[in-house]
């Protein structure tokens, strides 16, 4: 069994933000991703959807370059995933909010900003963007769960990344905040950023330009919400996903 970074990929002329080919990830004795291929178009919101444990986080870790892969390759913004140059251009928000609990929101965002050479204005802007200006002086452990999630997001936004990889960013947020955050994602995409956002709630699919539907380590389909409806004849995306599972993926 060999664990290694993805093999160097062939130079691709595509303008996708993310391109994945035949990606296999093995953890312990079992494969968690079974040869996934997909593309994520630039300047759009792509939703990565599927039930808990289907491999969404593993796939995202492959994109940001923290996952050992068994075979296949991942290209991000035209470079091999995990390249040094990409570290300036990718923002990654892990599922559990990863901020320092013992310093303030401002200090957290300023720290991650400093790593990418950001200015003080960038920091204020990122905090403002997630609606935490009022809470900027509060320590990480004084925040509610939703505020922590947003602080974690601000730590990724501060560097103005070209690609944002967000692992279940809206889990546990109240509905109003959820809508606001999706509005913010839309603004980022409109300004040219690419967003890859995972969720296990199908109703969030509505906010995405494209959907990657996953189940048990395989990609079932990549399509737009409208295409999903058309293909399954279901108006409700949750039911459409279920129909897709029962009828099986079509090539």
């Amino acid at each position, binding site marked *: 069994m060999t*664990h290694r*970074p993805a093999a160097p990929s062939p130079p691709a002329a595509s303008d996708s933000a993310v391109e994945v080919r035949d990606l296999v990830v093995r*953890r*312990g004795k079992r494969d968690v991703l079974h040869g996934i291929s997909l593309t994520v178009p630039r300047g759009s919101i792509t939703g990565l959807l599927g039930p808990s444990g289907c491999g969404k986080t593993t796939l995202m870790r492959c994109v*940001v*370059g*923290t*996952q*050992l892969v068994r075979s296949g390759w991942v290209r991000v913004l035209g470079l091999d995933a*995990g390249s*040094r140059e990409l*570290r*300036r*251009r*990718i923002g*990654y928000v*892990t599922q*559990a909010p*990863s*901020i*320092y*609990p*013992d*310093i303030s929101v401002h*200090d957290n965002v*300023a*720290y*991650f900003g*400093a*790593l*990418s*050479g*950001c200015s003080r204005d*960038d920091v204020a*802007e*990122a905090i403002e*963007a997630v609606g935490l200006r009022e809470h900027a002086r509060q*320590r990480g452990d004084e925040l509610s769960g939703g505020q922590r999630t947003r602080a974690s997001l601000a*730590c990724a*936004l501060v*560097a*103005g*990344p*070209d690609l944002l990889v967000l692992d279940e960013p809206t889990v546990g947020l109240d509905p109003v905040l959820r809508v606001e955050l999706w509005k913010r994602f839309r*603004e*980022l995409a409109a*300004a*040219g*950023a690419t967003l890859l956002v995972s969720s296990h709630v199908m109703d969030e699919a509505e906010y995405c330009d494209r959907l990657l539907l996953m189940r048990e380590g395989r990609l079932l389909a990549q399509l737009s919400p409208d295409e999903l409806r058309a293909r399954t004849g279901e108006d409700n995306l949750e039911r459409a996903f279920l129909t897709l599972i029962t009828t099986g993926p079509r090539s």
Partner: protein
Amino acid sequence: MTTWPARTRPTVTLRPYAATTARILRQLRNDHRTVGMILVVPAVLMSLLYFIYAEAPADPRGPALFDRVGISMLGILPFLVMFLVTAIAMQRERSSGTLERLLTTPLSKLDLIGGYGTAFSVAAAGQAVVACLVSFGLLDLQAAGNPGWVVLIAVVDAICGVALGLLASAFARTEFQAVQFMPLVVGPQIFLCGLLVPRDQLPRWLEIISNVLPLSYAVDALEQVSTHAEPTGRMARDLLIVAAFAIVALVLGAATLRRRSA
């Protein structure tokens, strides 16, 4: 956020390292109790030691017991405390997800390890200074040499504790395990450093082991200050060896950080 796509920025040089050091110091500063304990506990233990030996009969052949044991303790206590504090702090970084996140940023591994090393070394220096001030000022600890050397040795030794703590945290999956590394890594060093039995009186195989443990050299350097009015070449050599241990442990600690994991 009107400036997408990514702004062009000046080349980042020392800023990630400096920002990491500042961030860790800020975390430390916000934890008043930990700062208090880092600064005060070794000094309190030195005071305890003073009273333990206060009425013990003096050994006419050599230095008073408190002077001999006390000066060794000025090397041992900062080493022990800083090892523990650092191992747990780094373990927290690993388990909280912030490490994984940091490894996706432009921060280099040496910047991170260097930041930890620097921040905790500042704390270690504060601790060593307080412990030495109390020992020499209030408790009348006697040494032939200049107490300034004692402070320097204690600081370098504490930095070595920081470095080993960073390295040990790589082998701990939880904070519980990180704590267990203290008796495992520090225990034998205390037993073998010459405090309990002079190292040349140890069985040969134990003496060989003690020769490759950094604390042995720190304690030896302190004994040199204790017995010689002027700094000796042996003290300088000991000090360099302890510093070399610290650097090797820091580099190994950086090597244990993997950007990709299973």
